[in-house]
Every structure is written in C-alpha cells, then in structure tokens.
C-alpha cells in the first residue's frame, strides 16, 4: 500500500515559501493516520463482538429450541431399547404348582358402532338383530343407528365365528376393538380359590381386567404389574389332586344327601394348600351374581365354606385340650380321667354319647370322644391358658391365606371366656372356626409342633414357624389320633397302607333364632396321614349330611364325613406320590415276560 508521507515535499516547500512552520503539516498528517488506525481497530473489535454474540445466540437458541421440542412432543421410549422382552398380555397367568394353567387370557373382539360412518343403517340393524336374536332388538338398533349418537357399544366379547358373521354384513360403521378376556379353562375346578374377574375401564382399543374375588383380587396388583414381565403366579394347588378330590367329595356329598361340603388338604410342613374345595361351586367364567342382601350368604354357591364358613366344629377340638394338657405336664396318655356323667355346671349339663363308666385314660377320652373327660382336662388347664393356646394355633384371628375373602372368615369367640366356655370349647362348642383354621391347627399339632400359616402360593421349603408344642407331645397326639381310626369312632377311615390318623367331630347346627337343631349336623373329620411321619392334613366337612342306609338316619361324622375322607385319601395319596406301607399286590407288579 502507498503510505502517505508525513512530510510531503510539495507542501513543505510551499510552507517554507510562505514562512509557515512545516512541523504543523507533519503533526496534522500524524493525527490523520492515527484516526484512520483507530477507526479500523474499532471496526474489527465490533466485528469480533458480533461474531461472539452470534455464537452465544446460536448456542442458547439451540438449547432453547431443544427444550421446547422436548416439552412439546409425546414421550416415546427409545426404539432400540424396547425391542427386548415385550409384555403381550396385561394380566399374568395363574398356574398350579406344576405349571398347569388355571387362569389365562384370550384375545377376543368387541363390537361397537359408529352410525355416522354407516351406509345402510336399517339393513345393519336388521341383520345384527338376526345374528344376535337374544340380546339385540331391531327396533332399538334402528333407533340408535339413525339417531344422533356417534358411538355405541354393542357387545363386549365375540367369538371369531360371530365376528366373521358381523364382518359379512359388510357395514363400515360396525367396528371391532381388541378385548383381552380372562379365561378359566378348568371351569369350576378351583372356582372359590381363583374368584373371578371383570372389565373395569373400557376403551375401543383395550379394556382393563380386574379381579373381583379370591386370588385374582388378592394378587390384583401383582398380576397386573408390568415389572413382573408376565411371569405367571404359581399357586400351591395341584390340579390333578384338586380334580380327584372334587370328584370324590361331590360323590360323597350326594351319597350323604348333604347340603354342602368342604375339604382342605394341606402340607403340614410348608403350609401349602394342595387342594381346597367348597361345594356347591360355580363356573368362574360365568360368575353368578351375589345374593340380594338379607338372604343368608352361605346359601350362595359363591360362599367358600372352607375359608368363610365358620362353624362349631365339635369333637375335633378335643385333641387341642389334650395336647395342651400333655405339654403342660398335667396328664400323660395313660392318666385316668373322671368321666362320670352327666357333668353338671350351674344350669348346664354336659353329656356323653354313651356312658363310658367312671374313668377313662386320656388316650381313651380321645378314642371314645368323651365330652366329660375333655371338660375335666380343660378345667385343669384353665380359661387363660386355653385361650392363649388356641390363639397360638390361630383360632382367634382370620386366617392369613392370600384370598380377599380371608378376613370374612373371622372365628366367633365367646364374649366372655368363662369357665363353662372353657369346658364347652374343649369339645368344640362355643367357638366357631373355619375348616381352614382347623387344617392349620392340626398341621401345627402333627408336624412336630411348629406353627403353620396356610398359604396358597407355592413355597420353596418348610415354614419352621415358632414352636407351640414339643415334638414329644406332637408324637403322642398323633398316636392318639391314630388310635381313633384303628379302634375308635373313625374306623371307616382306615385306608390300608396310608396309616390315617384323625378325629371326628359332629356338632349340632345352631338355629338362627338361638338353640340348636336336633337333626342338622355339621360332621367333620380332621385327619392326617401317614401317621408314622405326618405329611398331609385333610379336613372334610359335610353340612347336614346323613347316612340313610340303615333303618335310622345316622348323622355322626363316623358314618358320614369319615367314609368320604377315606375315599378321598384312597384316591389322592397315590397322586401325591405317597408310597403305601403295604406290600404291592402281585398282579400289579412287573414280572419278567415268559418269552
């Protein structure tokens, strides 16, 4: 570039001629140069500031726009991450202990109409009414389809055949939405345990299925929890055993003309309920409506006699008094007990079924089922200790089984645990409990003496609960129960090979108006097998059963509940894989073929 000289010769000479100071010219030129320099630098600085400002603006604008986008778009899962395990069904299956399905889901279709999309509403109404003559009325459908409404539900569930038939109508205003339906493939097999389910919130694309009773409701949260990944809920039930038990119990109930029956089969160490039945039952796929209020709920097939039904169970309670007395060291199996009758206490008289003479040994009090003898033992124990012992066996609270009905099976205790209550409770009157309570208490007595809580969920091992009675007492109690079967009131219960031990109980049913019926009996057989090493407890209860084979109807448990229980054990024990303690018959054994 051409620099302007500070002292241009022409101007200097001219200034000299004019007698001016040439230094002024140089100074002026220096000033001009400095000004130009300053302007240039300012321009550059301004430019830099601008670029920097633009950078900051771009950065903040990027952040701002990104935040705006994030705030406004629908949240979506990252595509790649969601490609793994997917949940297909919204409600997990329920299986038995061997993984066989008790409850599952089936995708069906629901039918809805959008009249504003319809081409021939009249024809659609006519043909739909022809397809579903029971539930759709042509006049009403026509009214809907030609009216103002934009959306109408027509049917909740349809089979594929019905769907095809509706499809064939060819009406674009009839639309299908997917519906997941709860299916109980085994019908009434475990109806009371499973309970039932229904639709809650409904939408075109899906409907919420919620449990309404039983395990379905108790585990509602768990079954619907997506975090479980659709893993099925394994119950402790064994479907084969449940099925065989239902068949035998149903047959026994009909044979004994009973109004109802209940059975509980429990593992004495793990507390797992292998089978639990209450007859009559129902089909959970088509759950009946509950009875209108005011009626007796126990009349409904929905009523679970094994869990909700609290009854005075009678003499099956005697073993608790005897076991406690042995545990406290008050008696041993051979101690003689006064059985002179009747035992009078105030205005009450306690009688025995027969007169057993002046005394019986403790063992024979159980074997012969003497009310008077048990009452004497209970008086030695005392009300407080008896109450504490029965509480430790679980008789004062509802069972903790995982069913929503469990809290309704609350035992009925005497309002005041007086001395006469102590005596009557010792032989099973004055305290009402459910068959499930009894199963848990018997498990505790026979399993070596540790507390068992009944459960419907498959367990990994024994419960090893707190110790209630010593192993010695437990052993002595089982021996007495075994004697009841071999020489006492439950002689029909002796299933050869399975060493059944148990105690019968026949309690008159209380009238709703007070007092007791003379001819209506709750007959119970509480049994355990095999007696040499008890593994299972089976409780069978028949409601108003009677054996009419003889000349007089016989209602005591020894004639009604015991044969039914024996038939059940005969059938169930091999299914449970219990080896009988007898020689197998020669014809059934494998023999070398004679080739």
């Amino acid at each position, binding site marked *: 570039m051409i620099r302007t000289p500070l002292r241009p010769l022409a101007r200097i000479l001219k200034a000299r001629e004019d007698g001016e100071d040439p230094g002024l010219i140089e100074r002026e030129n220096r000033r001009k140069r400095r000004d130009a320099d300053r302007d240039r630098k300012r321009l550059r600085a301004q430019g830099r500031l601008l670029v920097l400002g633009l950078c900051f603006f771009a950065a903040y604008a990027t952040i701002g726009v990104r935040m705006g986008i994030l705030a406004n778009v629908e949240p979506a899962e990252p595509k790649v991450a969601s*490609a793994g395990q997917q949940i297909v069904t919204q409600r997990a299956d329920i299986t038995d202990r061997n993984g066989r399905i008790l409850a599952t889901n089936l995708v069906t279709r629901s039918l809805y109409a959008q009249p504003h999309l319809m081409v021939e509403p009249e024809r659609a109404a006519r043909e739909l009414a022809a397809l579903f003559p029971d539930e759709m009325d042509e006049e009403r459908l026509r009214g809907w389809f030609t009216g103002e409404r934009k959306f109408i539900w027509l049917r909740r569930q349809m089979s594929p055949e019905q769907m095809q038939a509706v499809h064939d109508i060819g009406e674009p205003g009839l639309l299908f939405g997917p519906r997941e339906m709860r299916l109980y493939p085994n019908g009434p*097999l475990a109806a009371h345990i499973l309970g039932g389910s229904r639709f809650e919130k409904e939408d075109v694309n899906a409907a919420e299925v919620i449990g309404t009773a039983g395990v379905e409701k108790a585990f509602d949260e768990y079954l619907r929890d997506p975090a479980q990944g659709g893993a099925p809920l394994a119950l402790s039930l064994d479907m084969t055993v449940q099925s065989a038990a239902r068949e035998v119990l149903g047959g026994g109930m009909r044979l004994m003309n009973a109004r109802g029956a209940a059975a509980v089969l429990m593992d004495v160490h793990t507390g797992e309920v292998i089978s639990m039945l209450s007859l009559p039952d129902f089909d959970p796929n088509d759950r009946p409506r509950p009875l209108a209020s005011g009626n007796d709920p126990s009349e409904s097939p929905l009523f679970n006699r094994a869990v909700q039904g609290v009854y005075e169970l009678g003499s099956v309670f005697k073993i608790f008094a005897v076991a406690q007395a042995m545990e406290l060291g008050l008696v041993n199996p051979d101690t003689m007990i006064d059985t002179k009758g009747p035992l009078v206490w105030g205005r009450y008289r306690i009688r025995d079924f027969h007169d057993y003479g002046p005394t019986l040994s403790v063992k024979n009090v159980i074997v012969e089922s003497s009310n008077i003898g048990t009452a004497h033992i209970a008086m030695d124990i005392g009300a407080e200790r008896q109450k504490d012992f029965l509480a430790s066996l679980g008789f004062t609270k509802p069972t903790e089984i995982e069913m929503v009905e469990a809290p309704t099976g609350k035992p009925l205790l005497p309002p005041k645990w007086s001395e006469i209550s102590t005596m009557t409770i010792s032989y099973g009157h004055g305290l009402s409990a459910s068959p499930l309570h009894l199963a848990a208490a018997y498990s505790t007595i026979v399993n070596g003496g540790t507390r068992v809580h009944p459960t419907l969920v498959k367990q990994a091992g024994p419960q090893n609960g707190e110790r209630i009675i010593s192993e010695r007492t437990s052993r002595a109690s089982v021996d007495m129960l075994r004697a009841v079967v071999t020489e006492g009131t439950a002689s029909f219960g002796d299933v050869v090979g399975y060493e059944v031990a148990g105690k019968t109980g026949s309690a008159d049913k209380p009238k709703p108006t007070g007092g007791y019926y003379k001819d209506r009996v709750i007959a119970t057989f509480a049994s355990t097998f095999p007696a040499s090493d008890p593994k299972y407890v089976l409780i069978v209860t028949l409601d108003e059963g009677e054996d009419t084979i003889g000349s007089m109807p016989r209602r005591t448990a020894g004639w009604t509940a015991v044969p039914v229980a024996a038939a059940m054990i005969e059938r169930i024990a*091999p299914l449970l894989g219990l080896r009988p303690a007898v020689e*197998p018959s020669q014809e059934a054994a494998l023999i070398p073929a004679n080739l």
Partner: protein
Amino acid sequence: MRGLLYVASALAVMALAFWAYQENYRTQASIRANSEVSRDIGRLRETLSILKAEWAYLNRPSRLADLAEMNFDKLGLLPVEKTQFARPDQLPYPPAGLARVGATVDLVGVVPQFAPDGEDWP
C-alpha cells in the same frame, strides 16, 4: 504444503461424513427390521397364548376323565391306585449276558431280497 493439508482435511471430512451417513442409514434399517421382528414376536406370543389356553381347555381334568371313560374298551385307563407302587427290586432287569442296546449283532436266518425288474417278493 499448506494447500495440500487443506485439501487432504477436506477430503477426510467428506469421507467421514459419507461413512457416518451410511452408518446412520444402516442403523435405521436395523431398527426397522428389529421392530418388524418385535411385531412378529408379539403376534406369535399372542398366538402362543391362545394355543396355551386351548391346550389347557382341551386338557381340563373333567374332559380327560370323560375321554378315558369313553375309550375304556381301547385304553382301559383307571385312576392311580396304591397297589401300583413297586420297589426297585421287584423290577425285572434284563439278564446279565444280554448285549447292550446299539451293539452290533450277527443276523442268523433268511433275509428277504428284492426281486429285480419290479417283480413281486419271492
């Protein structure tokens, strides 16, 4: 020298951009394929659950009991009984001298042979 460096970096940037875009497209294609497979899996799971439900329905104990009864002549099925338990020493084991399964043996006897020209068996 400096000019060459500029050209080389520009070419490198272009090559890297090309590679990055290609990877991007490949990833998107994989994601699409993956989601298709997931949809298939979902559909198959749905089918599977229906089949399982059907299997459970067809194998319900009451139906099996009815079938066993209906086909009693042919199958003779009865409930398991306690007499069917046996001890291991009651099982007939093969005699000690017998050859194990899969051992080669000599065949003694007449072997039927195919006749030539599609004729009948001799």
